[in-house]
């Protein structure tokens, strides 16, 4: 029940503090795109950020720095650096 994928934000609309505005982002990944809702994302993304998308909602904004640390955490005996893996 956790099926969710990271997608890149290409446009954002709405006021993060006003639920009555349409809190929407258009996101894409590898040439497919969709509108997703931003009402429940942990922090408001900027264009170019990534969000994790579940059932049409962004549930988490992904920060590049966290992703780099995450790769480093997973890397044990691998040869590639986190920067190489994320480029």
């Amino acid at each position, binding site marked *: 029940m956790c099926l969710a994928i990271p997608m890149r934000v290409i446009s954002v609309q709405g006021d993060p503090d006003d639920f009555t505005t349409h809190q929407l982002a258009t996101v894409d990944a590898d040439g*497919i795109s969709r509108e997703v809702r931003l009402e429940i994302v942990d922090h408001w993304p900027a264009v170019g950020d990534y969000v994790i998308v579940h059932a049409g909602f962004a549930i988490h904004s992904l920060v590049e720095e966290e992703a780099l640390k995450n790769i480093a955490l997973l890397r044990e005996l691998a040869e590639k650096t986190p920067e190489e893996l994320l480029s």
Partner: protein
Amino acid sequence: MAEKTILLDHGSGGLASQQLISDLFLKYLDNKTLHSLEDSAILQNRRGRLAFTTDSYVVDPIFFPGGDIGKLAVHGTINDLAMRGATPYCLSLGLILEEGFALDELERIIISISEACREAGVPVVTGDTKVVPRGKGDKIFINTSGIGFVAKDIDISSKNAKEGDAVLLSGTMGDHGITIMTRRAGIAVQGDLQSDTMPLHNLVAALLAELPGDVHTLRDPTRGGVATTLNEVAAASGLTIELSDESLPIRPQVRAACELLGLEPLYLANEGKCLAIVSGNQAEKALAVMRATKEGKDAAIIGRLVAGRAGRVIVNTPVGGTRVVTPLHGMPLPRIC
């Protein structure tokens, strides 16, 4: 069969469809030719062998990126003939139209059919049209039957796959299935997704010309996808089929849409691809022949036939694990879990 009404799953190409065939149709219509349940029936008479096939098309939406129901109806039946090594000769065209269906849409479809026939070199030589009252149909249903001729030395069948044979797929998988699914309201996804519908008889002719005797099986993985078709081949040949995850050709857009919706490309329909099972030592040559055609430019070797549990299909994962790929029971559905 426990069900008392037709369910959508009965039309999915998976286990439920197969049950309907074996429990109901074969019960009353059985004969040796029908019983083999191949893509086309090969009929022998004094003049040689004919291949004969029929298929019905009910796709919704009727227009979609990459094609329409008319194009599908021509290509699908040509492909069923080609999958037995037959040279397609002609088609019949049966239309069931719903009262109220727009004439300009019908015209678009007929134009599409005529273009597809012209490009493939296979004419429609007979046809029929019926109209049903509003609400008793769904805009348009199409049936096409096809006749082809099979050369003397050709014997292509799922049963002929042998241990050590290589499995090739003529291009990327899941394109048609994901395109149709993402056209549906409620599951819409935008992007560069389009149906792969195309006729494969020229690709097949090239393979048969270059590798006579080495092409054992040809199947087009339509409803139920590569997974379901390969399960059928594995069962018919009494072998196990081993695939490799990393070798499966999938477009990035298709992969991303599948990840988003919780679908598996192996189970999605293809309308312009064929699986070719060839002698193991001819795999590279078959690949080169396919890739030299416009229909097969993305062809890949995806697996092989090995001794093992009959009817089993397994995938070797990149980390060295394996998983079993079972046939679909019914339609693939998007999921959140």
